[in-house]
């Protein structure tokens, strides 16, 4: 082990770090026509409630958006997304600045036999934007991204290269999509996006070697 463990003078206050912090630099250097912005700050709540129950209406009132049907997403005026995950299951994603009152929400669904669990760290998000995004996604995802089929309001759970991903459409045709992925798979998804971007590089010269660039820092040997 390289550095001997030493106790610093002052202990820094606990700070939030996203699963993709170590990829930020590389994701920022994607070719034109393709940008990828990680965001691990969203409050995320797993809500289970009978869609026909009073609890469901209470959730809609508190969140300010209706509980959408299959493969759909509704968004409140404050930018809170509610995504369908299953017949009685939704994922609420709220900006860090405008969180949803968790306790109130939990109480609202309790009477209807519902459940609310804070899962803000269970998944993280990667916002893909640009003209190359549909082509990039079609390189690993079987979902139809055609305008009219994949428009804002659509949210589809599927997989990309063995990685479970939730696609939330932000613009028709897949040019602006929020990917929601399990935190421990986020690095693997980012590696996949970086590798897929090779196709859209302006010039190939700076491609160090044609083998897949080893983006993972964890070489087996001690560094």
């Amino acid at each position: 082990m390289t550095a001997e463990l030493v106790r610093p003078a002052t202990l820094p206050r606990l700070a939030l770090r996203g699963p993709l912090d170590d990829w930020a630099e590389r994701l920022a250097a994607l070719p034109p026509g393709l940008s990828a912005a990680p965001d691990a700050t969203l409050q995320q709540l797993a809500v289970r409630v009978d869609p026909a129950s009073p609890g469901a209406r209470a959730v809609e009132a508190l969140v300010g958006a209706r509980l959408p049907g299959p493969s759909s997403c509704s968004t409140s005026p404050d930018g809170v997304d509610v995504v369908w995950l299953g017949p009685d299951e939704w994922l609420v994603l709220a900006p860090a600045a405008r969180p949803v009152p968790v306790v109130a929400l939990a109480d609202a669904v309790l009477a209807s036999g519902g459940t609310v669990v804070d899962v803000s760290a269970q998944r993280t998000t990667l916002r893909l934007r640009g003209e190359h995004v549909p082509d990039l996604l079609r390189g690993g995802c079987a979902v139809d991204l055609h305008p009219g089929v994949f428009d804002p309001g659509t949210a589809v759970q599927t997989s990309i290269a063995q990685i479970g991903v939730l696609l939330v459409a932000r613009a028709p045709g897949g040019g602006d999509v929020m990917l929601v992925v399990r935190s421990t798979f986020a690095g693997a998804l980012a590696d996949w996006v970086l590798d897929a971007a090779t196709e859209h590089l302006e010039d190939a010269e700076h491609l160090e070697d044609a083998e897949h660039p080893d983006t993972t820092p964890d070489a087996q040997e001690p560094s």
Partner: protein
Amino acid sequence: MAERIEGRGRLDRSRTLRFTFDGREFTGHPGDTLASALLAADELAVARSSARGRPRGVLAAGAEEPNALVQVEHPFPDPMQLATTLELFDGLVARGLAGRGRLADVPDPARYDTRHAHADVVVVGAGPAGLVAALTAARAGARVVLVDENPEPGGFLLGTDDVLDDRPALEWVAAARAELATHEDVLHLQRTTAVGSYDDGLVLALEKRTDHLGAAAPRNLARQRVWRVRARHVVTATGAYERPVVFRDNDRPGVLLASSARTYLHRYGVLAGRDVVVFTCDDAAYAAALDLAAAGAAVRVLDARPAAPAAWASRCTAAGVPVRAAVVVTGTLGTDRVEGVRVADITGGAVGTGGELACDLLLVSGGWNPAVQLFSQSGGALRYDTELGGFVPAAPLPTVHVAGAARGELGLGQALRDGERSAVDVLTALGLPAPASSLPRPPRGPERSPGLLLWRVPQDGDGTEEFVDLQRDATVADVRRAVGAGLRSVEHVKRYTTIGTAHDQGRTSGVITSGLVAELLGRTVADLGVTKYRPPTVPVAFAAFAGRNRGDLYDPVRRTAVHAWHVEHGAVFEDVGMWKRPRYYPRRRPDGTTEDMDTAVLRECAAVRTGVGILDGSTLGGISVHGPDAGEFLDLMYTNVMSSLKVGSVRYGVMCGVDGTVLDDGTVLRRGEEEFLVSTTTGAAAKVLDWMEEWLQTEWPHLHVHLTSVTDQWAVFPVVGPLSRAVVGEFAPGVDVANDAFPFMTWRATEVDDVPVLLSRVSFSGELAYEVMVDSRYAAAVWERLVAIGAPHGITPYGTETMHVLRAEKGYPIIGQDTDGTVTPHDLGLGWAVSRKKVDFVGKRSFSRPANLDPARRQLVGLLPLEAGVLVPEGSQLVAAAEIPPPPVPMLGFVTSSYRSAALGRTFALALVAGGRARIGEQAYAVVDGRTVAVEITSSVLVDPEGARRDG
């Protein structure tokens, strides 16, 4: 002799491409294939036959070519290319193959990828039928994908001088291509071959994106791409392959299919011979005869039918092309190339006296085999069309349609009408209005007269020189021998003779073989059928199907939130499922050398037992179980009672399969009346969640329970060792960490810097331990703070290897290492965790089967080698005696875990031993490299059996 002629071909003659074939330099032009460039240089022989070493030349112009298999050496070794489909590029180095290709011995630098596409209809083939089908559908607003194997659309039109609306047909093709480009919902892919047609409109197609650029191909572009087109309807407009006729020495270079010679003329500007004999049973060969004559060749036509078709005969007469009917070719003359043919009259199937004709090119046409591969792969049934002498779709499938020559509709006019008809069928099924018909007008050609069914020219001789499958060197003699040996099925004949097993999958030999077998057995071809069509239709590189799933992307790498810290601190990792887990942290010594694993692990173990260690346990599964029936549900899933667990407490649980074998184990925290937090082993996390969901959804939907995966929500850091209390106490000042305030198997919730933290007194090492659980976004910060606080106490990060040693010293089993799918809780000595009170739980009934009550079942015990320092390898078998008798030797059991123990100052192991608990105190022998190592069977708990260390 074959040569390039002026004024013909779709080549860019302004640019010259240099290439090397069989060590000799040649030139060609963009638009050439390797085959056309070789023909232009009069190089007829391209390979030696695989078994008999006979010279072989190009027979065809496309994927049906049986002979011209070439090995590409530059830009990169490629063992399987067809000269007839390999687009020429500058700097190509290739050589003829005698059947076996050579793989490169260095990794392939090229990239490969895949693309998904969706359409209302996918059209395969951009010939006249396919282009019309695509245009008709596009005009109706349907989403269309059109794929075609050639560099440019047109199909067979590329190889003819046909006209449409009195203009060259290729002008209509260009207009069609341009119009398709205006439709936003049309994806038109050339150089893309449909290789498979699967269920529900899935068509797989391989796009060659940069092969034609050779070494100039941009390295960042995928060389080849697998398209996965999911369409509601499929239209296969794949045309038909011309069929040869079998006769003696039909394999000599200089024998071409009639339509292929026409293609070499019109598409590549190559006149394949100056003195041409055309031997045909079908009208189509006449067009080839007339075109080659018009290009300056001396051509004569031999028609095997009793009478030549009048219209074509008169055209030949006008062009000075002599036509002779009721005549067959019985053999070719010459050495390495055709110099002449033997001919003979044929009346009523009987061959009369013969003569010889000099020629330098022999064109052959035995009729047409519709390309039904994709239709057949989709499950479509085939029907033998006696007039055509080939198999056609018996009836269309609901979503797979066939248009044009692919279903026997030969001729340009039929192809155009059938393409439109297939599109209208699709649009009708889709509920879209069909656009007005606007087909181009084909010229009024002669009516097609019936072809003659002639698989083989009747002639004596043993048939050893009459070739049926040129690539496999399989002859009429082989077919006769197969039938003579008792084989009746064409599948048997194929395997016996190897006919149809090469790269061309029997395109020119399959139907002929069925014809020959039918004649030998006196049965009909319809009755015999043909061998099964299977994907892919053309060979596809392994790497193309692998796509980008290579290297680190072969399988996702799963990382905990503290991964970067582990890397910076020199962790050596281990693969656990998809996870990378630190196995140990080798320290660099002052002299610059680095600890080996054993040294590092002994240090880490000693630190945990005497000071304080910290482990990244975030890979453990976490499931939040909510609802009024949560307790009842967990009682059904676990062997022990969970519903009695008090809020604030933790309980260890074992979970079994229905067959009573251990599926997983872990701890359960009760966080509220209706809320439990379940932890699982790393390996079983996904499996346990699925297992619980399966029971809830399909057996007990009446239970009000909700499951939520929180594996990635919570990071889990065991802080372990006598000094752990001090470290955790300082880290979480809001919690009284003293033993009586915070006893074993309880948990406390607190906050650190306003971040919610759970602490639980769970120990997997027998030491005083606190598991620190936090939102994984704060995990890195919490880990660093714990390490900072612990530094003065000598806190030591430890990996999975040390964790294994510590838990094994306490006899705690690891599911998946100390179990193998046949082990029950009782076998592991976990009978105490199996409730006797509960009426039922998953697996309980299996415990009372005879096999489960057998005292000889293997049970988990400890082992101490009599020689204290000997490390018995994990997996070693255990036998009863020091001397190993001759096999089969009865085995008592095997070693599941084996380590050096800092605490014991010696090696020890755990093992599953038949009737193990009753043997404690006895000796057994571990077999290591053929010799025995004496071991004493002990209790499985070797360190601190009384549990004194647990509370610090």
